[in-house]
């Protein structure tokens, strides 16, 4: 199997995830897009581990999975907090950083 296949797939998923981050208004949707990105990275890592014949890529991928899970947990907690305070999780309205 060609290495390019995995890598291209990963690249495609990455770019779809980037599009999702930019385009989506709902905070949870943005988090989902981020998950897409992280998964594409994982695929890249696995592919390279296969190419290099080393196990480091697998280990790294495991770590990424763990961190991604943590990050989603905290992120969703924050989204809940925001929802509780503002009754909306539309990122358009969450522009306190404006200016």
């Amino acid at each position, binding site marked *: 199997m060609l290495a390019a296949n995995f890598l291209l797939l990963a690249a495609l998923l990455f770019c779809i995830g*980037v599009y999702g*981050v930019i385009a989506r208004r709902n905070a949870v949707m943005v988090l989902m897009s981020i998950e897409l990105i992280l998964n594409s990275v994982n695929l890249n890592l696995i592919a390279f581990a296969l190419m290099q014949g080393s196990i480091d890529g697998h280990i790294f991928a495991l770590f990424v999975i763990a961190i991604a899970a943590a990050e989603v947990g905290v992120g969703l907690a924050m989204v809940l907090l925001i929802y509780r305070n503002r009754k909306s999780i539309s990122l358009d309205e*969450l522009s*306190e*950083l*404006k200016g």
Partner: protein
Amino acid sequence: MLAADAVKLSSGWFLENLWLAALIPAVGYAFIMLFGKKMPNKGSEFGLASIAASLIVTTGAGIQWIQRVDSADKAAKGAGEEGLGLLQSLRSLPAAAEGEAKPFVEPVTQTWVWWQNSGIEFGLGSHADGLSVLLLWLVAFISLLVQIFSLEYVRGDRRYTQFFGALTLFSAGMLVMVMADNMVQLILGWEIMGLCSFMLIGHWWEEGANSRAALKAFFTVRVGDVGLLVGTAIIYFGVEDWIAENPALRDAGFNGFSIEAIQAWALSGQGSSWVLVMGATALFIACIGKSGQFPLHTWLPDAMAGPTPVSSLLHSSTMVVAGVFLVARIYPVFWEGFNIANGGLSFIAIIGAITIVIAALLAFVQDDIKKVLAYSTVSQLGYMMLGLGTGAWLPAVFHVFTHAFFKCCLFLCAGSISHSGSHHSFDMKKDMGGLRKHMPITFWAWIISTLALTGVIPFAGFWSKDEIIDNVGNNGYTFLMWVGLGGAALTAMYMTRATYLTFFGEPRGAAAGHHDPDHDDTHSHATDEEAEEHELEEATVGAPMPKSLSAAANAHGDDHGHDDHHDDHGPHESPKLILIPIAILTFFACTAGFANATPLAVGGSLGVELGEEIEYVKTYVEPRYQPVAIESMVASGPGESLVPYEAGFVEADANLSAEEEEGAKKSGCGFETPADGTVCFFPKVSHAVPTTGKILLSLAVVALGYALAIGFCRAFYGQRNEKLVGLTERNGLARAGYKFLANKYYLDALYENVIVRGVAYPISQGAYWVNQNLIDGAVDAVGEGGKRTGQIVYDKIDQGLVDGAVNGSGTVASGSGEGLSGMQNGKVNLYGALIFGAAAVGAIVLVIINVG
């Protein structure tokens, strides 16, 4: 007798270190100016010491020069002795056989290169030969006597120190000039003398007349100095061309400025006659200015505004003979340039003759005793020029020598009279008369000096002036000889007038003890100490007030700082310090003539014929006309000389004849060109043998002058003969003549009103116009332009450009800020887009760099 090897001439320490004679007074000047005021005698010690040291050096140099000439003559005789003592030299001179040419005695020269510029070397050095040694001794001697005189005469003067400084500097300058071995140094000394003359004439510059006189002296001499520079330059190029064609001369030390080279070039026959004439004319113009010849003589009488020591030193004995010295020094140039060899009327002789007469005539109408003496000096300088112009080199130089003594003595007597007799006045008519009773020593000194001046035997002037007249006639200038005799008569006449007015007759004015009360009043505050007591602030300390100077006809503020004889107001004899120099000079006025008593030596005109040995000046001073082989000059170094008689005695040389001087006037140096490889330095001038007839004639002329004058004076001044008194008022011709003389032939009017004003007035008008319109206009325009420029800069550049740029940048900044602030809208999506977009751009760049 013909030695295959050359013989060394004796030299000496003084001859080789002659430069000390000029250096010591220069150092003395520096000491006087630096330390003089603090010394007990206010600096005169340095002056006297330095001049005395200079006198020692020059005396030593004179003795050694005499020894040198003797060694040359002895070597020529093959006597083989060397190094004679002075007395031996004087007594046992080798008698030159008749017709035997004496060898040329090479001068002792030393040169130091001062600076170089484009291949030309300018040097300083000393050139010791007979003429320079004679004049150096003369200058040092007279300077010393005048300084002694000044100790008393200018005592208490407000600028005592500067006076002595200037006197010493003048002596240094004249010594530098006389010992110069090149024209540049000669000019240097010439100019130093001019400067000191200016300083000393204007010593009491507080009075305008004195400073005007100083300026007049300086500028008139300056007009002549143009000729000096032009002549030096012309001759330089002529000499350099000659040296370029004869390279051997360069090894002998010749260059375009060297005086030896100039002398040799002039007589080499290779100088173009045009260059010679132009150079000689230009140089003689300088002599006209410096030596007070017609028409630039007008400054000399006005120079009497200076103190009497200045007049006696500078303007009678030493400085004014600088022009005569110049002609005598590079005589070959004038000899060839003005063709004196062929007996034609030369420019020099004409000017000299004119000067004799016009100065003598002017001396008749002067009331100021110093001015009489000044015109007398001018007249005697005319004699010297007449002599030089007609080929009578030796008598002219000898006359310089003797004239210095008696003229200086006359001036010092005049100073003595004014100091003690006429209460600081020089006006003969107003303040003198009958002084012979009160001032006997001065009187007899005056009489002896007058007799010397007029040429009465056996005093000094007779032996020199009559020689001039004799040689003038002998060389074929009969008319000029009669002019000279006439001048002698005139001299006798005006001196008699001056003597009579001063010493005989009834005392007048100050001589009678009368004082102008105003004059007396200010006079009593003459000294510095008294002026302080009496608070005469407006009077410059020590000077009498101008308006009360009725006693001074021409406002020469003869200062008097004495405090000794205020109590006795009558004329009396002068103190010792004044009389001692007078006495010494009187002695020399009696005896100096015997240094070259030609009538006693040859011709038997006075009943004795002592031989040529007693013509000391002729033997030791007059340069010999023998040609010199160039190789022998190359071989000798400074201080040593080889007697170059190989060339002199070569029989085959057709240019040299050893015939008798009387018979062979048309051969020898100056008449023919020297052979190849030889140069000669002095033309073969002829010497007249005095006859009894000529001597008696000149004495008779003088006696006639005396007789007429004494008769006239007694009649006019003494008895007030009605026919004579008031003649100028009654007779139109007499009045016109008197006016013409009194106005100095209107020459001063011509110079000042016509020439100076005619030149200066338009120039000053033009300069004023340029100043007002061009210069001021330019300045105003610049100012105006500056103002306009400032306005434009402010409006357009400052307000428009600079402020616009500043404002613009602010606008751009705020505008871009506002534009870019859209990026910060607080939306995470946009932030994310930016992040990824930036990462994309960064990645592209990386890819391009690494892959591209």
